[in-house]
């Protein structure tokens, strides 16, 4: 296959000042790639392009990636305007070139969200997600101070539901897909996982309040329930967790004197 790629190149990082994102400035560059095999992964196609760029003395395109198995959540880019590209339930690293045809033009851009400033080219800063987790995405238990694992039985259906929420890979596609750049799906997945399990119930009120407060402080937008987040989520995290988190949140607000 022969393809035309239009790739966002940005050498200076974005900055956030007084809650406003100031772009580092960049532009779409055009590249022609040939000899693309349908069995290549999308990132392998970019590897080959990068090798060509290097050989001709040009700087390679920077993008985040690591596991290339759809689990670390590192890869992150819009492909033709869609987070992680056209295939449902698939991260960029698991997308293969057989999803494209000879002669296609493909547009590749970094996540665009106020809370995810661009670092370089396709690489963005998602540390806001880490800070939300630090605000409460855990059970407060020290190493070694606990009971036997089978002491508290958990219904299989509950454990499975908690697991479904816990499969979030923290890639940020939900934010990238949302017109408001909301992080509700990401936050709700963690809040739901921990509030459903008996181990996480003690702290459920403060957890949801603190995590939501941090989410707002990071500059993520409000949720208007469009469902784009869940539709684009490579792990298919369901919108029902957002509803669950809203219940948790209002329940907590009604009874707490926190935050």
């Amino acid at each position, binding site marked *: 296959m022969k393809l035309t790629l239009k790739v966002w190149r940005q050498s200076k*990082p974005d900055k956030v000042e007084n809650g406003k994102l100031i772009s580092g400035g960049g532009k779409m560059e055009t590249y022609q790639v040939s000899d693309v*095999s*349908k*069995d*290549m*992964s999308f990132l*392998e196609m970019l*590897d*080959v392009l990068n*090798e060509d760029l*290097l050989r001709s*003395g040009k*700087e*390679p395109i*920077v993008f985040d*990636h690591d*596991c*290339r*198995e759809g*689990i*670390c*959540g*590192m890869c992150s880019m819009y492909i033709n305007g869609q987070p992680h590209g056209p295939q449902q339930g*698939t991260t960029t690293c*698991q997308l*293969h070139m*057989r999803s494209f045809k000879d002669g296609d033009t493909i547009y590749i851009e970094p996540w665009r969200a106020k809370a995810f400033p661009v*670092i370089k080219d396709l690489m963005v800063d*998602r*540390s806001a997600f*880490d800070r939300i*987790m*630090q*605000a409460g*995405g*855990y*059970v407060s*238990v020290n*190493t*070694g101070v*606990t*009971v*036997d*694992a*089978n002491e508290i*039985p*958990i*219904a*299989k259906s509950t*454990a*499975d539901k*908690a*697991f479904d929420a*816990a*499969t979030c890979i*923290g890639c940020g596609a939900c934010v990238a897909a949302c017109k408001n750049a909301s992080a509700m799906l990401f936050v709700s997945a963690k809040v739901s*996982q*921990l509030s459903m*399990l008996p*181990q996480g119930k003690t702290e459920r009120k403060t957890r949801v309040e603190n995590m939501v407060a941090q989410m707002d402080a990071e500059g993520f937008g409000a949720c208007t329930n469009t469902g784009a987040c869940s539709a684009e989520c490579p792990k298919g995290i369901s919108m029902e967790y957002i509803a669950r988190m809203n219940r948790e949140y209002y329940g907590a607000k009604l009874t707490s004197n926190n935050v």
Partner: protein
Amino acid sequence: MKLESKIPDGPLAEKWERHKFNIKLVNPANKRKYDVIVVGTGLAGASAAASLAELGYNVKSFCFQDSPRRAHSIAAQGGINAAKNYQNDGDSVFRLFYDTVKGGDYRSREANVHRLAQVSVNIIDQCVAQGVPFAREYGGLLDNRSFGGAQVSRTFYARGQTGQQLLLGAYSALSRQVANGKVKLYPRTEMLDLVTIDGKARGIITRNLVTGQIESHSAHAVLLCTGGYGNVFFLSTNAMGSNVTAAWRAHKKGAHFANPCYVQIHPTCIPVSGDYQSKLTLMSESLRNDGRVWVPKKIEDAEKIRKGEMKPESIKEEDRDYYLERKYPSFGNLVPRDVASRNAKYVCDEGRGVAPTGLAVFLDFRDAIKRDGEDLIRAKYGNLFQMYEKITDDNPYETPMKIYPAIHYTMGGLWVDYNLMTSVPGLYALGEANFSDHGANRLGASALMQGLADGYFVVPYTIGDYIATLPTDKVPTDHPAFKEAEANVKANIDKLLSINGDKTVDDFHKELGKIMWDYCGMSRNAEGLKIAKEKVQKLRKEFWSNVKVLGGSEELNITLEKACRVSDFIELGELMIDDALMREESCGGHFREEYQTDEGEAKRDDDNFSFVAAWKYVGEEAQEELIKEDLIFENVKLTQRSYK
């Protein structure tokens, strides 16, 4: 020189308890005066950093990814072992210990392995308390499965994403300590050197991967939890960034490297499809419970399949060679990883491999589907089949999967004593980065166990024994040792940037990988290893005169990052070859063609090679010095593994 393994006295089952009682403690009020650097945020690093912070130490935590949650541990699929005996099927701490020593082909330390089996039960309790959603039975209790040919069901799992769930648990504990102000995170930061003062580890030199800044960090102790070195082969199941740089540079500062030639090759990976291949994907071992491995009996049939002129489904029963079932009637398709891998290589070497490259065998579910129905097979392996189809565009319900062995795990690593301290005082190594528990071969579901054991339950105790001997004074980073190390790191980077040759870093990495795979991979022999050594030496020279690294040092530079890593892989590759050449026996993952039984199986030489090979760095381009730590077996009887 002799290595002190510091194994405590007393009966096996009491060693750890006694040791914990005998080691020095750091007064709780004093802990906050000590700083600990933890490099790596995988299962080993995240669990250690969180636990040490809970105890009161000040922790600095480093990783090269953008978030600690993305460490390579996230990719582990199958599960984690623990001797809980919840299934009442006769498991016990001793049995897990025994299986691990035997599985490692009697090349690990008894005392370490026994401790691992002991603390395995605490790991599961800890993870459940953190909210890790393990699989459960309808009654609400934890579910187990048998894994990797084990005869008891002791593997805990979270669908096919066990590593992810365990790591997110450890990451949550780490995040809590960040919020408490006890851990400071340094993501996108790569350790490029270890700093020693008066022979003790006192800090590290790092490069900020975003700005390119070289920085010094000092501490009272340094923990390397930096994972394995499988990427020396270029293609492996490891994440793209996994590397040996931290361990290797510590090695050059005095930490001995043990058993580098012990690597594990996993039999069921998706085969290479072309030159552009960047990594290999593992298909879970559990598939061998129902899939049957075969190749065509006739070379002509294999040729036709390779050319696409024939479909595997159309090969008649009598023309198929189910070679594992034929050669190993009692274990069949469930023989250990090394045996399954080697046999796949043999049939492909004979010209009976399938797939266009000739390097693949079939894993066929036809009979299982006939026996159990497609629904049941889908329920068991649905996600794996789907992943396979995504990558290969073949539907395994209709046509057999194609698989081939790939580098998966490295048993070798930095030498550590019973306290997990390396040969540099104050420097510890945890998880896959050390050599300690798996001998010459690791059993499935035991790496996750070891990483978490080291981080949650071993090092938080043993580190006190060392720290208690230190004054609380901080080491200033303007000490000449830091300045010198910084200058060396910068000089090394400048040199890489100044070469401006013709070949890319990946060119060199691929070439290295091919040499290692051809001569120091699934099977090795003296002649080949000698050739490989020459080739690697030549490659190293060429690298330093002809590599092309663009851009500058004080900026985000992905090519420079790779170049640093590959330069270390090349040096490690040579040591692996030395180690493989020295070990004139076959054991576990190390198969020397000259040393096999009449039936073609690995033949150990316990009289002469029952030792840990610890290599001491003695200077640039000089032959490393071999130091032997004899292995003493008091509780298990050494036998030849047989799977016939």
